[in-house]
């Protein structure tokens, strides 16, 4: 049963990678951005379905780090520098939000 589930997952990922890299006609950077967006979809599953609140906090934190990479690749693709400004601001806000969520989870007040 376990082996069957692993095989099904590997085959599904292989089909998606084949569709992305060999069927989909686009520049290479757009294909790499697609892989990152698919990873972000996995993270969103953990945000929605996470059993404990800490899982959701971790997932939101990781989503911030992933979006920095996606924005850097977008800036490389469009050859525009302002995407990195958005990425830096996103990183800062994601860090502050993670710390605030951790404090709330621990049961302390924010001005503590």
């Amino acid at each position, binding site marked *: 049963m376990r082996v069957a589930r692993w095989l099904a997952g590997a085959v599904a990922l292989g089909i998606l990678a084949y569709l992305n890299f060999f069927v989909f006609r686009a520049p290479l950077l757009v294909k790499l951005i697609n892989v990152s967006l698919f990873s972000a979809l996995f993270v969103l599953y953990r945000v929605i379905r996470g059993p404990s609140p800490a899982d959701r906090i971790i997932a939101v934190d990781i989503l911030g780090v992933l979006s920095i990479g996606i924005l850097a690749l977008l800036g490389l693709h469009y050859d525009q520098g302002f995407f990195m400004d958005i990425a830096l601001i996103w990183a800062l806000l994601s860090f502050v939000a993670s710390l605030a969520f951790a404090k709330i*989870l621990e049961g302390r007040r924010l001005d503590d």
Partner: protein
Amino acid sequence: MIRHSVGMAFIWLGIVFDFLGVLGLLRLPDVYNRLQAATKCVTFGSAGLLFGVFILKGFTSFGFKVLLGIAFIFLTSPIAAHAIARAAHRSRIPLCGESVVDLYEADHEIDKEGGDDAA
């Protein structure tokens, strides 16, 4: 040409590490295991990706902003992970069934007993 190849190699490495870290976030059984896999792999993955973009762009304003992003990720991601792990352990989120020992909890108990003795 060599610069382009090296930059694209770093970007591929970052994408693969990002994907593996997110897979660990999805598949591992426990909050702490998930935190370990996700934070390590995604930090190195995103930092490697940004380093590849920096190699491709060189010392332009874009490149300096990318370097700033790498420094920021390396500074803040471990701090956030530490705060989340501490908060999760303090709010009594249980470890997974295969866990053998929980030394942080033992230290906590010793601290509480010592505090009682001192009082």
